């Protein structure tokens, strides 16, 4: 090799040294493309072994690359991961998922009608929050991302409080401060949703560490999208969870799309998201996220593992975001509309419905009646919530609340700013209207 003329100088070009090439990931299908998902490896239901919850993570590497599935093509439950839930629990699960979908439909429409600024549906991903939440104890602490409305519904949070929050109206428990759907409910062991991504992951680990320090029996769980696993916070969470053997479940919802960026921009071309756990020595499961029974079984396994002081688990739920990221994007501008139709894992609500029918515990008539009841419930509750106001129509919290809760006590500078704000209102309206 010829030496450069001086240290640090570029060496002359070498004809036998190949030119480097940068790889920029590109999704397989863009708008208008014909979609073929046959490259996805979808193992049959029941094929994955179910180890004991105390297993060492190194012994279950294959589960980070496979796909735990319970519901088969025949709509029956198969294999060792079958959680063997009784029909009443299955119907409850189905009911929660159907209510989430009906709720999403109505709230999305409400945004389009100008009743609020923003909404995010979880269509196609209902199982990853409803079934997972049902596998936890009701007082286990959850640190959700922004697409886990299913947890609140599974935990019985009042629909009207969700709608009041979405409308940012005068009955909004968060006083109109948060973007729609960024719920919070300590009473439901549901952490305040941030909107900044993956910050909830180390927080869940910290909560779990605190619970362990105290000899409590409650565990924590966080949810994050596959795109956000690229954030440093996710990796900090994994490190702390592994180091302190924290009783926590780190759920990764791989719905293939982070707004317009496909999962390849978070590393999906190289390995699975469950496999992130392996480098940390964290037990890792990869699950069919559209199979409610598999979601339940994986979460129950991880919960038992955490509760038994055997440590954390990462669960990747392989699913598909059937709608846009939010009301603010049009997915037809960046991906093929055929993807949703061709998605090989089907729809989670339909699969659970078909399972209940297959075991003789459900039928089309009852399903149609349930859907109707969900829609009616959402509609009636929406009307009730609208009495408290919709966004931008005056019925918000009293003006002074804007300055409260920045600190426990109002410091002088905020007191002065509050007085200024009230002067501005009086200048504009001639009086400080209680709700205007």
């Amino acid at each position, binding site marked *: 090799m010829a030496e450069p003329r001086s240290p640090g100088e570029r060496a002359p070009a070498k004809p036998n040294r190949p030119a480097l090439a940068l790889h920029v990931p590109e999704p397989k299908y863009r708008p208008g493309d014909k979609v073929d998902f046959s490259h996805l490896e979808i193992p049959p239901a029941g094929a994955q072994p179910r180890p004991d919850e105390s297993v060492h993570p190194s012994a279950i590497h294959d589960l980070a690359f496979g796909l735990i599935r319970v519901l088969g093509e025949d709509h029956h439950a198969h294999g060792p991961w079958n959680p063997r839930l009784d029909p009443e629990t299955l119907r409850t699960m189905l009911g929660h998922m159907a209510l989430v979908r009906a709720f999403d439909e109505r709230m999305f429409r409400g945004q389009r009608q100008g009743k609020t600024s923003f909404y995010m549906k979880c269509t196609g991903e209902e199982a990853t929050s409803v079934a997972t939440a049902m596998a936890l104890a009701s007082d286990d*602490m959850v*640190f959700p991302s922004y697409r886990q409305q299913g947890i609140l519904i599974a935990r019985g949070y009042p629909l009207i409080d969700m709608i009041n929050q979405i409308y940012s109206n005068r009955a909004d*428990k*968060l*006083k109109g*401060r*948060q973007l729609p759907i*960024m719920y*919070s*409910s*300590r009473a439901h062991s549901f*952490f*305040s949703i*941030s909107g*900044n991504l993956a*910050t909830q*992951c*180390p*927080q*869940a*680990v*910290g*909560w*779990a*560490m*605190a*619970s362990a*320090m*105290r000899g409590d029996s409650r565990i*924590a769980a966080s949810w994050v999208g596959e795109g956000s696993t690229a954030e*440093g*916070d996710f990796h*900090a*969470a994994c*490190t*702390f969870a592994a*180091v302190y053997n924290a009783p926590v479940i780190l759920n990764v919802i791989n719905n293939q799309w982070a707004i317009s960026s496909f999962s390849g921009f978070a590393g999906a071309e190289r390995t699975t998201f469950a496999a992130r756990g392996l480098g940390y020595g964290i037990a890792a499961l990869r699950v069919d996220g559209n199979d409610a029974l598999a979601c339940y079984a994986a979460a129950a396994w991880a919960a038992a593992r955490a509760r038994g002081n055997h440590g954390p688990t990462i669960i990747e739920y392989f699913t598909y975001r059937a709608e846009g990221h939010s009301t603010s994007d049009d997915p037809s501008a960046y991906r093929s509309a055929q993807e949703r139709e061709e998605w090989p894992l089907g729809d989670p609500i339909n699969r659970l419905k078909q399972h209940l029918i297959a075991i003789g515990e459900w039928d089309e008539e009852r399903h149609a009646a349930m859907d109707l009841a969900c829609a009616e419930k959402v509609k009636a509750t929406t009307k009730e919530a609208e009495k408290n106001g919709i966004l931008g129509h005056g019925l918000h919290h009293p003006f002074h609340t804007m300055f409260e*809760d*920045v*600190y*426990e006590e109002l*410091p*002088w*500078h905020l007191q002065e700013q509050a007085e200024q704000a009230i002067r501005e209102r009086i200048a504009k309206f001639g009086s400080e209207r209680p709700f205007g």
Partner: protein
Amino acid sequence: MSAETNTVESAAAATAAEGERRLNMIEAINEALDIMLARDPDVIVMGEDVGYFGGVFRATAGLQAKYGKTRVFDTPISECGIIGVAVGMGAYGLRPVPEIQFADYIYPGLDQLISEAARLRYRSAGDYTAPLTVRSPFGGGIFGGQTHSQSPEALFTHVAGLKTVIPSTPYDAKGLLIAAIEDNDPVIFFEPKRIYNGPFSGYYDQPVAPWKTHPDSLVPEGYYRIPLGSARVVREGEAFTVLAYGTMVHVAEAVCRAKGVDAEIIDLRTLVPLDIKTIEASIAKTGRCLIVHEATRTSGFGAELAALVAERCFYHLEAPIVRVTGFDTPYPHSLEWAYFPGPVRIGEAIDTLLKD
């Protein structure tokens, strides 16, 4: 409030003559942590090297042995993780006191501080709070180079929901740290590491007096607190007002003494919430204002102080407000004392301020 506090403090310092205990700032901080760990089972201490070893500056020495390793423990080298888990622990009901080994290392944890800890009470309408106290040594003058010398306080005073506290004496360090830990809002507690062992005067070519020769090293045993948001009048005077905090309180004091000027020196102690009344009263009396901080100049906390004094005390002012700060460069290693706002820079500023 500040006037009362000052009286209480002076009394405390004066009555400590018999069986008096003199502590340096590290010992005072260690004692505050010890007292709070003993008083409140929700208090936990964590950070890089704080456990068995007791911290790179020894601030947590002996605490793990005394309280056990589930209450005082080492963490991975991940400031994002340290602050993130502290927020989660706060949500559980604990009162974490994480240490960030150097303020220069705090940046990976900023999102967790700014977007999470600072806003949690607000965004959840009081459902959740983040009662953390983030301790971190800050400031230069120890040949720490650009990564062990910074004064990033203005990054935090800019954030709604955070409180920022900076002690300048062992007595204050203990009382303020106890108040910070008991506070239900997130507090950034910056410890001026140049004065851990003695009140550095800024005359770097002269020997530094140890704390034991300083009246504020008299630290009573047991629990006491200094309320956040109360400044301390270090020295009363008529000629002009000095607004300073941390190391620069002692430097300003030494320079004023050397120049024989009758300055009123105010140690702010808490930047947010700021004790504006003490500042206003002093400017009304002196009519001149010198602001001193070690941090870089542009958008430093001195800019906020200058704006407040101009807005609120303009008709008392007899001369333009003068700022003395570090230069707008990274903290240089070999030229540390050229960067540091020492006696020459402060002396010139005083001459300017008193010119007319």
